[in-house]
């Protein structure tokens, strides 16, 4: 038996202490055996008795990338050999971001039964949905590897930087999902709003089209956080000259996002079970 853990609660004012929020996030992330298992379980559940399992997603993404690649390279008058990897990487990263946003909207709602049965850090539930989507991303990454090999500008440094970018993107998703999860638990109108927002954001973000096509209005791309979240992974693989800017922006988002999230989370963390 473990040494007797002690817990003291002294009303809502003390519950709001920043240290509780930090503890929740740290303990939640550290509980790898919980979210690791539950995330895998989600995937296995979704693809039970399917022979290809999550590779169905890989196939459908590959088909979509190929079809759209041929069509849009023509419409947008782009060179297919550079447009195809651009589209493939952008689309795969976007699919992960969009799924994470949509899943964070009901992360606590779907875990309601668990939250009301046992005490776990709320962050554990968020890590579960992130992990689930990282697993799906890993299946889709086959496509990225494929086009990256086909596209010859790949470098070792680019690959390493893409991993750094990926790590920063996931950490950004962690704080954003926590905030979204808490907000959606309280305000039930946010999930449909977000679903709509994600759909619109897909077209406003340079995924199908190259930001250079914006000409003098390129600020529309640079001001879009999704552009940098995607470019931080796509840029290094494609070997663009400016990816370091996107990496910097994504890193900055972490520096600003995490402290603000902890402040927000400390205020509302203890209220979430009451809202469900």
């Amino acid at each position: 038996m473990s040494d007797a853990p002690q817990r003291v609660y002294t009303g809502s004012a003390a519950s709001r202490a920043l240290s509780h929020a930090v503890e929740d996030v740290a303990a939640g992330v550290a509980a790898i055996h919980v979210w690791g298992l539950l995330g895998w379980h989600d995937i296995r559940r979704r693809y039970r008795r399917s022979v290809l399992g999550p590779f169905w997603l890989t196939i459908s993404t590959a088909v979509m990338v190929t079809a759209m690649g041929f069509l849009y390279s023509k419409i947008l008058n782009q060179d297919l050999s550079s447009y195809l990897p651009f589209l493939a990487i952008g689309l795969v990263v976007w699919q992960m971001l969009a799924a994470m946003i949509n899943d964070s909207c009901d992360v606590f709602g779907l875990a309601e039964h668990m939250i009301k049965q046992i005490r776990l850090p709320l962050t554990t539930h968020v890590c579960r949905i992130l992990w689930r989507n990282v697993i799906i991303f890993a299946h889709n990454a086959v496509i990225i590897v494929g086009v990256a090999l086909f596209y010859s500008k790949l470098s070792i440094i680019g690959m390493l930087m893409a991993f750094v970018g990926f790590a920063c993107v996931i950490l950004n998703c962690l704080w954003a999902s926590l905030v979204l999860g808490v907000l959606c638990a309280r305000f039930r109108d946010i999930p449909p709003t977000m679903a709509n927002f994600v759909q619109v954001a897909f077209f406003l973000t340079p995924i199908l089209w190259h930001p250079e096509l914006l000409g003098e209005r390129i600020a529309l791309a640079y001001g879009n956080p999704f552009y940098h979240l995607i470019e931080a992974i796509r840029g290094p693989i494609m070997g663009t000259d400016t990816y370091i800017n996107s990496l910097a922006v994504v890193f900055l988002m972490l520096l600003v996002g995490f402290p603000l999230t902890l402040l927000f989370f400390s205020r509302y963390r203890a209220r979430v079970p009451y809202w469900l």
Partner: protein
Amino acid sequence: MAYIQAQDVVVEFPIYDLAQSSLKRAVLRAATGGKIARDSANRVVVRALDGISFEIREGDRVGLIGDNGAGKTSLLRTLSGIYEPLEGRLETRGRIVTLLDFSFGIDPESTGYDNILLRGIMAGLHPREIRSKIEEIAEFTELGDYLQMPVRTYSTGMQLRLAFAASTSVEADILLMDEWLSVGDEAFSEKASRRLHDLVHRSSILVMASHSLKLIEAVCNRVFRLERGRIVEQSAIRPEQRPAEHAPDYLMALARRGF
């Protein structure tokens, strides 16, 4: 040393989904359930626990008794750390295990073994701990090769066995329980009753909610009577009040009669 101390603990639920003006008169007349009031921001709130104070020491077996909505489950959830009190002070020392709904989280599409693992994880056990217990749990369920089959192929009785065995394979300093768990068929329910009895005995503190005073007298040494979110009476159960029969048998007989 396991220990629980509560001082003026208050738990309130905000109600967001009702029209507040029409709600006000309707619910203020309600006779059962928590007290309905408004908080400082003029929101309608249900006061599920209204200034609860007590001290529970090592070896105590506390029975919570009260009508539906008196706050029994809310108190158990507060003790387990799920609801953090809005006011007051709550201190707990010891590893807490909560058995509120023992068939929760059973995934019908997964095998029996997978479900044992999942349940263990959700009960706060490390996969290592679960693997060391899995043989014992499997044996207890008497399900044999069925454990490699998806749970949806089980009969209701078999599902209950699995859920019961998995959720009672825990070690607690403080055990929180909503009603005495009982399962299905004659032969198994005797085994189950004994197993639960052992678990209770191994735990330093038991807090159990029940509608049945008979059950509480058989298991507990203290009773808290809850009414509308308050403890209106704390009393001790004297040993001579306890049934003379051997406890697991008596509990099983009680369970059979539906308490």
